[in-house]
């Protein structure tokens, strides 16, 4: 599942990288010792507390800036890091949870990735650094909010079953059936080579079919979503199951059912299966 993978990536980055955005450098000697851990930016002008729901039970609150509000907690300057994957997973889940709550309360929220910490710069406390950054990025943040308003991210992964496909191809392709018939009439050694020939022919045909299936599915899905991002396909654990497409889709709330219906149709096609996950924070589109 797509978002099951996302935390894993975050886990890896948390475990290995400690370098943050170089523009947000730290000065440990300043009086304002604390940084601000940033969960996201909400489309709301509120100054409020969300309770101790943050990572390591920190109190989460909002810092408004002309119509937008950053969702933060006071944090040490060092990024959250642990060699224990379970601990990191817990943090990432909490991060996700805070974003869910924020969305419920404030509507549209631009999600930020795990471990984004705003640090004080010299005498300037982190809060002012954050406000300055929000001022500088104001237009771009507003644009992003507009882009994602009323929309959610969904993961769509489509798989095919090679064995079913190749059966279909053998049944449908004259050329391939002929190779198969020839193979059956040969002695073992020669039949072996014919078998290779057959496999190569099937593979070729399968690839060309998958290209047209990809285009077909893409077109059909595109009708129901605002934006599509084509992600890299991944290898599956199951032997007889291959991923043909891996998409992140930005979907308007009222289009969700349509998309689901279309995907169900694809799922019902012989030799294909679909995994539909979400809704997720719109990470892929901000």
């Amino acid at each position: 599942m797509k978002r099951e993978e996302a935390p894993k990536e975050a886990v890896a980055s948390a475990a290995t990288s400690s370098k943050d955005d170089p523009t947000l450098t730290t000065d440990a000697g300043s009086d304002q010792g604390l940084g601000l851990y940033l969960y996201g930016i909400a489309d709301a002008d509120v100054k409020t507390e969300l309770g101790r729901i943050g990572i390591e039970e920190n109190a989460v609150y909002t810092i408004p800036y002309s119509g937008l509000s950053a969702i933060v907690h006071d944090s040490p300057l060092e990024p959250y890091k642990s060699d224990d994957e379970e601990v990191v997973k817990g943090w990432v889940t909490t991060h996700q949870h805070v974003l869910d709550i924020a969305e419920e309360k404030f509507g549209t929220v631009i999600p930020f990735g795990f471990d984004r910490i705003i640090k004080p710069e010299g005498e300037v406390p982190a809060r002012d650094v954050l406000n300055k950054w929000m001022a500088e990025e104001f237009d771009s943040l507003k644009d992003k909010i507009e882009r994602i308003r009323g929309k959610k991210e969904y993961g769509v992964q489509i798989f095919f079953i090679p064995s079913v496909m190749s059966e279909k191809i053998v049944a449908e392709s004259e050329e391939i059936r002929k190779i198969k018939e020839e193979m059956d009439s040969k002695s073992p050694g020669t039949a072996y080579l014919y078998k290779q020939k057959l496999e190569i022919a099937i593979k070729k045909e399968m690839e060309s079919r998958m290209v047209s299936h990809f285009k077909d599915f893409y077109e059909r899905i595109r009708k129901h979503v605002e934006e599509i991002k084509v992600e890299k396909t991944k290898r599956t654990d199951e032997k007889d199951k291959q991923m043909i497409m891996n998409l992140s889709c930005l979907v308007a709330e009222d289009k969700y059912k349509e998309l689901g219906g279309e995907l169900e149709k694809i799922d019902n096609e012989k030799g294909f299966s679909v995994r539909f996950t979400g809704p997720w924070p719109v990470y892929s589109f901000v």
Partner: protein
Amino acid sequence: MVLDIDEDNLKQGVLGLVIALLEVIRDVLRLQALKRMESGVLSEEEIERLGKALMDLDVVIDEIKEEQGITETVKSVRDGLDDLVDDVIDKIVNPSQLLEET
């Protein structure tokens, strides 16, 4: 590329690597054999011998994998090689080209 080889079991790891490479070579041989067969330069008897030899090679490889319990190791080495090649191809062939045509 980092090959995932269990340090406690270096022997298996190395053997797995060797067999994985042998498999790759076997695949190349197969393709070459096919080409020869289709080019028509081989007699029927030669084709049969060639096919038989490759068949025997398959059996031997499978036996070694089974006996040494390295089927998974071989697979992970080959998957690793696949990923490496995928990455390279991915950089050369931009997948968005596929979409622009639609």
